[in-house]
């Protein structure tokens, strides 16, 4: 028996030594399985680093958690498709970030396929002057008629229709000029134009709608090579791209449905750029093998409150709930200390024309108890157990809410749902509280979809029906003046802060690990594969 025990202990020791050994040590024993792996190793032994010439990689390996739905840019809805399509197709304009002379981040709209654009005095007509000599990947030149065709297709697409808001006509006045006529002043117009890809009319008509969704062809810096169902997608640099061929010649996406194994594959060196879960950031940072870039998200993790609920319809109850939430604790526990607390639904720094709230809610349980007592529910008496729904990603935030509200005497039952079920429940108002990330646009106006009574039963998930809010959004939608917008947004931000129709909880941060040899040319927030290159 002793011999057996000794043997088992010896095996365990060998295994633990293998498992705990550093990558550098194990490097010597690795096999060279594929060229791709060979060219993108994360670490080098000293001997290897002394080698005079190292082959510069040409491939960028990425991962995604889901397969694509379609590669028709007018109908795709999944982020996995969007990531690929964003390299193949381009829009007229984009919202970009860059550094000014002092190294500060600035942002704004930039022309992509449009050279420039101009609004008429009444803001009901927009004229786009297109860049000349822009080639589709089949060699044909992009003309104004392609833009008109793309707009027509977007109008026909249920998932793009919302982006074509108020557009009554699109006309090509010559090969390089497009005039868009609007039925009303549309503050979100430019934002919408960042999401309408320009497609080739002749190619679409030649291959038909079905084939078009399988073999995309646009004006972007990369052209489609292949997609293997549930395996991944490959694109390669378009050699005649107008701004020069991309430094990275091939981009691949592998599908990793399981996040734990995706993280392992990343640690094994299978990907060159990888979005790290916040709980793994410290480990990856400690390994010292990656460049980590952190970007704050403009969209808050928020608690949706069902405003049509008998009890939650009472503003004092909603305020009490807001005061009872310890958001600092939430950042620490739910986000591993990364990110910041959210005082406003509209990020005061990362969204356009926004402002800080005048009187933010600070964690104050006594104040919360007072408000709850004023509402007739002292110590939570008379309150039923509230149903809080969420999805796995925001479960930790939900647990923090549950714990904080328990201090007020409010019992919360958490239900973690599949994304589609969750979406259905919040759409029809089948919940009391819900925790989710609200992400719409870095402009305030599109957020009316969450607040305006026109969107009840659609995207007004909080079931908010407040004429004052409707009025403020209507006013915001009727002006293009920055000053007027700022004034209205200030009023709106403070009004909804007092009324707590939704409770902003925290701002998250995204951490992306880059291979140390990857060079980012430009601002990381806007950088696509085209803006990356391998160090020589």
């Amino acid at each position: 028996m002793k011999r057996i025990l000794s043997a088992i202990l010896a095996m365990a020791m060998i295994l633990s030594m293998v498992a705990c050994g550093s990558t550098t040590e194990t490097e010597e024993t690795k096999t060279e399985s594929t060229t791709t792996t060979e060219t993108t190793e994360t670490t080098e032994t000293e001997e290897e680093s002394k080698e005079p010439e190292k082959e510069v990689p040409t491939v960028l390996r990425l991962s995604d958690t889901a397969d694509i739905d379609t590669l028709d840019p007018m109908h795709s809805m999944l982020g996995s498709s969007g990531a690929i399509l964003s390299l193949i197709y381009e829009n007229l304009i984009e919202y970009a970030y860059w550094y000014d002379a002092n190294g500060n981040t600035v942002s704004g709209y930039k022309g992509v396929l449009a050279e420039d654009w101009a609004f008429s005095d009444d803001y009901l007509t927009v004229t786009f002057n297109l860049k000349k000599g822009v080639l589709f990947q089949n060699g044909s030149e992009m003309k104004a008629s392609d833009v008109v065709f793309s707009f027509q297709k977007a109008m026909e697409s249920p998932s793009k229709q919302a982006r074509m808001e108020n557009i009554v006509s699109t006309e090509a006045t010559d090969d390089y000029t497009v005039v868009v006529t609007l039925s009303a002043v549309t503050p979100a117009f430019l934002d919408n134009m960042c999401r309408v890809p320009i497609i080739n009319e002749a190619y679409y008509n030649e291959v038909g709608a079905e084939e078009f969704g399988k073999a995309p062809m646009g004006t972007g810096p990369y052209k489609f090579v292949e997609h293997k169902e549930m395996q991944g997608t490959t694109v390669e640099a378009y050699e005649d791209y107008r701004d020069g061929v991309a430094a990275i010649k091939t981009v691949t996406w592998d599908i990793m449905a399981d996040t734990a194994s995706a993280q392992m594959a990343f640690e094994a060196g299978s990907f060159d750029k990888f979005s790290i879960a916040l709980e793994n950031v410290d480990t990856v940072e400690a390994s010292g093998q990656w460049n980590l870039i952190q970007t704050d998200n403009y969209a808050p993790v928020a608690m949706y409150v069902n405003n049509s609920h008998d009890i939650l319809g009472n503003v004092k109850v909603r305020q009490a709930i807001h005061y009872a939430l310890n958001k600092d604790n939430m950042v620490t526990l739910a986000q591993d200390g990364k990110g910041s607390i959210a005082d406003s639904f509209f990020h005061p720094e990362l969204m356009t024309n926004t402002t800080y709230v005048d009187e933010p809610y600070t964690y104050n349980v006594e104040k919360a108890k007072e408000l709850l007592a004023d509402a007739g529910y002292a110590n939570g008496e008379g309150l039923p157990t509230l149903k809080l729904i969420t999805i796995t990603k925001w479960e930790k935030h939900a647990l923090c809410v549950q714990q904080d509200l328990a201090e007020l005497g409010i019992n919360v039952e958490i239900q973690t749902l599949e994304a589609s079920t969750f979406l259905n429940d919040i759409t029809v108002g089948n919940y009391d509280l819900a925790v989710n990330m609200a992400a719409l646009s870095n402009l305030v106006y599109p957020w009316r979809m969450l607040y305006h009574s026109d969107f009840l039963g659609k995207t007004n998930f909080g079931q908010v029906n407040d004429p004052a809010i409707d009025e403020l959004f209507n006013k915001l939608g009727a002006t293009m003046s920055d000053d007027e917008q700022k004034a209205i947004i200030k009023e709106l931000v403070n009004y909804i802060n007092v009324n707590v129709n939704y409770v902003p909880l925290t701002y998250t941060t995204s951490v992306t690990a880059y291979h140390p040899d990857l060079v980012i040319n430009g601002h990381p927030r806007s950088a696509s594969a085209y803006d990356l290159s391998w160090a020589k």
Partner: protein
Amino acid sequence: MLKYIIRRTLLVIPTLLAVTFIVYTLLIVTPGDPGRIILGEFASQEAVDQLNHELGADKPFIQRFADYVVGILTRFDFGNSYRTGNAVVDEIMVRFPYTLFIAFCAVTGSTLLGMPIGILMAAKRNMLVDRSVNILAMIFAAIPSFVFALSLIYVFAVQLKWLPPFGVKTWQSFILPLVTLILPSSVSRMRLARTTMLESIRQEYVTMARSKGIPENRVIFVHALKNSLIPLITSILNSFSGMLGGAMILETVFSIPGLGLYIVQGIKLKDMPTTLATTIFLAAIFCFTSLLLDIIYALVDPRIKSRYTKEAR
């Protein structure tokens, strides 16, 4: 005998119908509007209603179910995926070979590994080999498959970098998933082989063979093993359907584009045709494997054979 086979085959039909009804009902009662899922949260309600009408999602439940079953029986139409718009049958046929390959290799591997060790353990019962292997078997049986899978990835892909951590690009990609399936499942095969062999070894005819002076190897492999094979064959065939299920979990962990990953993505996106058709497909495989097993039994086991022969008379 033919009557028995026909009767067993006919039993598959109500079983599959029941599975279809249960899964269909479960998917219908869970929240989720097909039109909204396909068109997205920002599509207009009119567009969603129109699509629901085209899909027949606005019809009464029984009518929808009947249409679905009729579509399967008359046109072999299991519907189109909400995600891709392609026929689900075509998508299943592309993915099934991966799952089948993994399940087949796993069953073969676990049998080739588990059976000889089980026989050896029975021959050397209560000796060092028997006890050591038992301890290892308990360890493998106790570790959940996904934990085992992740541990293997960590050691062999992350630390040693000997094997790819995921995918199906090279033959090496299949090593870790197969090891994950084969090692734990060979434990049950091993235990069963040991138990059945021990039972056989204790039989009088084995004692008789030994008393005749027949060499021990011949006693074990010819006399005892032959009579232990029926429960082992049952276990092997039964485990095939189990392996299909096991492969599904591993496909997600190792990103193998088989039915497992397909159904997981279908569930995540509430892609009802995908989830439903894959479940029915797997249920059908399970039914036909059981049917095959029963037929083999009937052919091999003289008791069953004689019962039906008597009935025929």
